[in-house]
């Protein structure tokens, strides 16, 4: 057993886990409040990828960018992407979920599938059905080997670093927001008991809207860093990433914010290890097998509390 190879896969797992965790947060927040699986959430991630790519192509930059350029150009583009992705998610809620707030549970789930399906195929028309190239705006330099001169097969490059620099502060920011701000408190109250929260004077619809906005913005950011990190994508990328992230959210305990992050890293590492030992086509099957096992044996997830279904 080669230890360096294992560490290398762990590093990959942690980088993949970072963007999966960011997507999983959106699933878990919406589920916490509405008990709805927002199927279209993965497609918001794909939207972040496509939208940021379109903006960057419009700016007509020469890549790779220098460090000041990365901060001064990619920073604002990311803010713009997050804004657009957040608004798209709010729009989906408005059109597909809000009219069905009191309908049987299956109804918004069906519209969610419809929204996801419509978005995916819009993306296919927008950017074509084949693989999309995302230019390597952030140069990929191997930090350990080239800068530090360590002879190792463990790869940790500038793009990995970029991914961590973007995703981890966003997660910390979200957790501070949910814990420390008034709106965050309102979110937690709404998640606990929507009716009681409404009676306490919380504008529930506004809380739901902000939840969708924040979740969408995080997924949008994930989509952009994914593009900068892997340099390739496809109109269906949201479908797969969405399923992985949903599995992460369930693994961590759906509705639980820390759980979503933990689940994201778990799934990232599982995925990387499965790539090491099995042909890569099986990765999805492995992740779905985890999903089924978790749902059957510990439906509350790692950090969630078991709830009894009420009449």
């Amino acid at each position, binding site marked *: 057993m080669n230890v360096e190879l294992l560490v290398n896969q762990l590093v990959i797992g942690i980088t993949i886990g970072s963007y999966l965790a960011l997507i999983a947060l959106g699933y878990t927040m919406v589920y916490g409040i509405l*008990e*709805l*699986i927002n199927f279209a959430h993965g497609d918001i991630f794909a939207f972040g990828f496509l939208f940021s790519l379109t903006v960057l192509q419009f700016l007509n930059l020469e890549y790779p960018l220098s460090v000041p350029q990365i901060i001064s150009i990619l920073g604002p583009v990311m803010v713009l992407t997050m804004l657009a992705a957040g608004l798209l998610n709010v729009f989906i809620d408005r*059109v*597909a979920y809000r*009219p*069905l707030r*009191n*309908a*049987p*549970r*299956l*109804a*918004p*789930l*069906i*519209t969610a*599938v*419809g*929204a*996801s*399906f*419509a*978005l*995916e*195929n*819009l993306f*296919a*028309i927008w950017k074509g059905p084949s693989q999309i190239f995302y230019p390597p705006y952030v140069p990929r330099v191997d930090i350990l080997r080239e800068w530090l001169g360590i002879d190792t097969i463990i790869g940790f490059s500038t793009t990995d670093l970029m991914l961590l620099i973007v995703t981890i502060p966003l997660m910390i920011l979200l957790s501070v927001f949910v814990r420390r701000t008034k709106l965050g408190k309102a979110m937690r109250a709404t998640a606990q008991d929507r009716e009681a929260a409404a009676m306490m004077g919380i504008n529930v619809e506004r809380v739901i809207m902000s939840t969708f906005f924040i979740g969408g913005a995080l997924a949008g950011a994930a989509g952009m860093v994914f593009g900068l990190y892997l340099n390739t994508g496809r109109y269906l990328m949201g*479908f797969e990433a969405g*399923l992985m992230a*949903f599995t992460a959210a*369930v693994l961590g305990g759906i509705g639980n914010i820390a759980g979503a992050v933990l689940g994201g890293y778990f799934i990232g590492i599982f995925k990387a290890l499965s790539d090491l030992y099995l*042909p890569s*086509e*099986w990765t*999805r*099957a492995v992740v*779905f097998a985890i*999903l*089924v096992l978790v*749902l*059957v044996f510990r*439906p509350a997830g790692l950090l969630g509390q078991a709830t009894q*279904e009420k*009449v």
Partner: protein
Amino acid sequence: MVQKLLAFLPEDRRQRQVLLGAVGIIIFLTYPFIDRALGLELLGSLVAGLIFVILALGLNIVVGFAGLLDLGYAAFFAIGAYTMGIFTWPNLGLEWSFWVVIWICAVVAAICGMIIGAPTLRLRGDYLAIVTLAFGEIVPTVIRNLDDLTIRIPFTSIYLVKDLNLTNGPQGLNPVGRPSLFGFEFGFDPLHWWYLVVILGVFVIIAERRLENSRLGRAWMAIREDEIAADAMGVDPIRTKLLAFALGASFSGFAGAIYASMIQAIFPELFRFQVSIFLLIIVILSGMGNVYGVLVGGLLLTILDRVLIAIWIPQWQASLAKALGWSWLTAIDLREWRWVLFGVGLILIMVWRPEGLFPSAARKAELHEHEWEEMGAEA
């Protein structure tokens, strides 16, 4: 409008059903000749479309009767088709008779339905949806990778199977065996298949109508409306749901078998997520749970998808563009947009008319329960 049309029919319900059924059967039996006489050449598209209607009828058991949202129904279709392919593909040397294998297909699909159902049917509805979605994704992946199968008994060097090309990977199985009946060989002519598919359709509809009014059918509806209450009344939820999964899957096993034999070449790509969604749209648009509704809705959507969008509208577009000199008109390809339209359609139906176009009375009452409660509260 429907009311006005119905006014022309006999008063008695039974007579009315017989009359409508007879008209329907006559249309189906004579359609190939009408098609040929009018020179429509739509038979090929419609035969394939009818198979999707049969699939939708199978999905109707799961989604409509039992209320279980299955997003991976195409997987059972794939399993049926590939079972037919494996048993009749010349390269594997089995080449069994179509009439034997079609039953095997149904049984294999039903067993797969039970295998996926057994661990997951305990889950709540929305989790079940995502697990079936995952299953629908895994099946084509597995099929694509079963082109070099080796099974060894662990810790020994005895190979049960070595380097077996079971599914021929992404290239798919071609050719698939065709049926022959009393010396008549089925060929590429869609006319040969039309009657076989219609017979299967009639069989499925009769089976489903019988199921609907059976003890099991009523148990499904009880589960759909309130699982906890049904459980308390002595309906075993797991067993009941499992039977819904198995029966629904077996219908798609039949449909998959005929489909594979008809199109002669099957690939994993034929059974993607789109198929599951298209079937779901048929069931929901038509009114979940209503057998005849699904039949009519399925036919309408199939004609829309396979005839109007795929054949006629592009022709009209081309001739209109030519007549008016609008070259930009030909640039809009509705075929590209059809999945977007279906996705948006799914949202619109659920928001505006969740009971579908032809609702069954029970389902309609269920979906508008909250409105009644609200009205009661106001009054």
